């Protein structure tokens, strides 16, 4: 199925305002608490992102999906999406 035409709803796309710059370079798992550790480019731990950066629309602060980046947020219904074909 190939769609070359853009549906009308796409004409309503607009950028996020006030995109959030995400300061970390690397994420690692804290083995003890199983929470995320944010690290800079030298691998040094950073403070966790401020909670004001967490929005309802998109995914916390990951890769700027909060408002800035082009990478889509992890969908709220991921892995509940059925395969294209069932048997």
């Amino acid at each position: 199925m190939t769609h070359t035409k853009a549906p009308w709803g796409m004409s309503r796309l607009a950028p996020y305002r006030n995109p959030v710059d995400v300061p970390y370079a690397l994420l690692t798992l804290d083995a003890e608490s199983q929470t995320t550790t944010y690290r800079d480019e030298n691998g040094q731990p950073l403070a966790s992102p401020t909670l004001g950066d967490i929005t309802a629309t998109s995914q916390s602060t990951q890769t700027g999906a909060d408002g800035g980046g082009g990478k889509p947020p992890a969908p709220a219904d991921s892995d509940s999406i059925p395969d294209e074909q069932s048997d």
Partner: protein
Amino acid sequence: MHEPPILAVTFLGDTTADLVLAELHGRGVPVVRLDPGVDFPADARMSAHLTTRGLSGTIHTPTRKIGLDAVRSVYWRRPTPYGGTGPGVTMEEQFTNSQSRAGYAGVLANLPGALYVNHPWRNRDAGYKNAQLAAASCVGMYVPESLITTDPDDARRFITDRGPAVYKPLRLVHLPDDEGKGRTVWVRVVDAAEVDERVSLCPHFFQSCVDKVADIRLAAVGEELFATRIDIDGDHLDWREDYKRLSYNPVPVPATVRTAVRAFLDAFGLTFGAFDFALDADGRWWFLECNPNGQWAFVDDPTRQAITEALADTLQKGRT
């Protein structure tokens, strides 16, 4: 640690889930974090053994080992999607991805005795706007009239007869522009003259616009409800557009809304739900949508802490 663990299924960097995991860790409750689409197969492995006695077996993560028959609760947040199986994907990838989705997700969604907050398949079922609106009406909420259509004439007629009306996508959209900057569709009033033939290319969702004085975000965690009034400093309709111009104030939940929210959650088999309401000048709460796996940590500090604790309580308690 012999206490049965809580399994958190989500991506690394899920700051919202981290709040709950930190709370549980502080209580001494064992937690195992897993992002199946990323951790398997390099860093994690699974064997699920099915016999007449039921399911047993283990998942090894990089830092933990968890017995599949010993999980107390599952906090199902936002795991990284498995890869696709469509055009452009190699046969090896197609095979791996389809088997992964069925195998990992199938096992993780069927852990015996575990409480799911929420079950991913319940999230999926509750994620459809038409199902939500029907259920909300059924449980006695005020629901704005809505239209899902591929017919431009019907769209124009709806906007004229039931307007002012808004257009919303049926699913959250995140599409970058040519420079890679994130874009989405914000909820805005639509004029009948704006609608054209391109509405016929896929279903489009139109809804009567509630004449609101404020928005309300309500997080429901089991029996506990946390409602926050959101006021916008600006004239845009969609509060999500600009978080820097919002103020949050906790508000009590009217008894009728409380009852309806409970019934809504029960109808979809949900433990958690993030509801959006529009508050009108007469104090009516109009149901806009429920995000069964919605974000909740962006509100004021005391409410955030209260929701964190309520989720931790629920997960710690497990099935009772």
